[in-house]
Each structure stands twice: as structure tokens, then as C-alpha cells.
């Protein structure tokens, strides 16, 4: 089941630069997308989300872009900080149902170098 894919297992970025994490999905029924950050031995922490009626959502240093025709979303972090080093998961869901099952990608390990 590869409905949500993060093709880059790891990414290394210089502090202060932009980090871009990518995610692709195959299920056109998905209409809500989320990014989570995860540290070892902790649960996923919500970062930012976007519904399919938008193509961009911004929250501070984090911006998520959605390209529905390409079934692609990306998370931009500007500027990148050492504390951003973590595993980032994208997740997708279908809001039609009351309970919202999330389908996760495999994660991308982001390392911010000083």
C-alpha cells in the first residue's frame, strides 16, 4: 500500500537555508493533508495542514504547497534551524468520513547542519 510516498529518506540542509520536503499521493479521494515532525521515542507532532480547496498554507517558517493535478505536496521550512532536525512525515486523509484515518508516508529524516 503506497498511497502516500516520500521518496527521499533523508535530506541535509545548511542552517539558515530553505528545506524542501516532498510527498506524493495516489488516492484522488484524499482531501486533507498534514505534516508531522517526529523525534526519536516521541509521538508525531502536528506541524501544518492543508485542505484540497487550497494550494498554499503558511504558518511562520512553515509553508505547505499542494498541487492537486500532480498529486504532490511539499513542505518548505525557511529559514532552517538546528532544532528542525527530525523525521518529517506527510499524511493524507479523506474528510468525508467522521473519523479521520491518516495514511502516512515513510518519512524523511531532515538534518540541519550548523
Amino acid at each position, binding site marked *: 500500500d503506497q498511497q502516500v510516498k516520500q521518496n527521499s529518506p533523508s535530506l541535509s540542509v545548511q542552517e539558515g537555508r530553505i528545506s524542501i520536503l516532498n510527498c506524493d499521493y495516489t488516492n484522488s479521494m484524499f482531501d486533507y493533508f498534514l505534516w508531522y515532525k517526529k523525534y526519536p521515542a516521541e509521538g508525531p507532532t502536528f506541524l501544518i495542514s492543508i485542505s484540497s480547496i487550497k494550494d498554499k498554507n503558511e504558518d511562520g517558517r512553515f509553508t505547505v504547497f499542494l498541487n492537486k493535478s500532480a498529486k504532490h505536496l511539499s513542505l518548505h521550512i525557511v529559514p532552517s534551524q538546528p532544532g528542525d532536525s527530525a523525521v518529517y512525515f506527510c499524511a493524507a486523509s479523506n474528510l468525508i468520513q467522521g473519523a479521520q484515518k*491518516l495514511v502516512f508516508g515513510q518519512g524523511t529524516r531532515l538534518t540541519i547542519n550548523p
Partner: protein
Amino acid sequence: EPEVTQTPSHQVTQMGQEVILRCVPISNHLYFYWYRQILGQKVEFLVSFYNNEISEKSEIFDDQFSVERPDGSNFTLKIRSTKLEDSAMYFCASQTGGGYGYTFGSGTRLTVV
């Protein structure tokens, strides 16, 4: 900031034994979930729970698994007869609904030996 609390943080059990993983969701949330992550793999949905019943479950959630909300505050996941392949991090989550407030706990690491 409200939290989802999970206990214990780490549980070691012998194969074939029953385990109960406990969660205290955020108090005004309506939807409750269990996910798991086997080491090195993606986070996988197990089950969702709303209005005191299961609303959806995955193929993983077979007859060995059950969930309960016994007292209006706790939300438990029971594995009746554990197998080695049940070793994973188990995450509880709760949500207000409508795409908002989806919050995960810090997880229980289950090790089956």
C-alpha cells in the same frame, strides 16, 4: 497545552501473553485512534473509535486486538495473545473532528520476547 498521555512508555512481554496499552485522550476530543510503527517502517493506522464503537479498522486489527473506552476518560488497546511481530511503537491519538486537533501521544514501545 493539552496532551494525549500513554502508559506505560515501554512494555516487555512474553509471546502469547495479553497486554493492555493505556491512553488518556484530550478531554473534549470525540475521535480516538491507535496507530503503530514497526521499527524502520511507516506509521500505520490500526483503528478509529467514535461514539463508543469502532468506526474503522485496518487489516492489521484482527481478532487478537480490541479497544475499549471503559470510563469516559481512558482508551485502551488490548492484544490478547502477543506475537513477536507485534513488537512496535503504539501511538494513541485523539481529535476534535473535522480535520482539527489531531494529537498523538508519545507512544508505548511494546517488545515481545
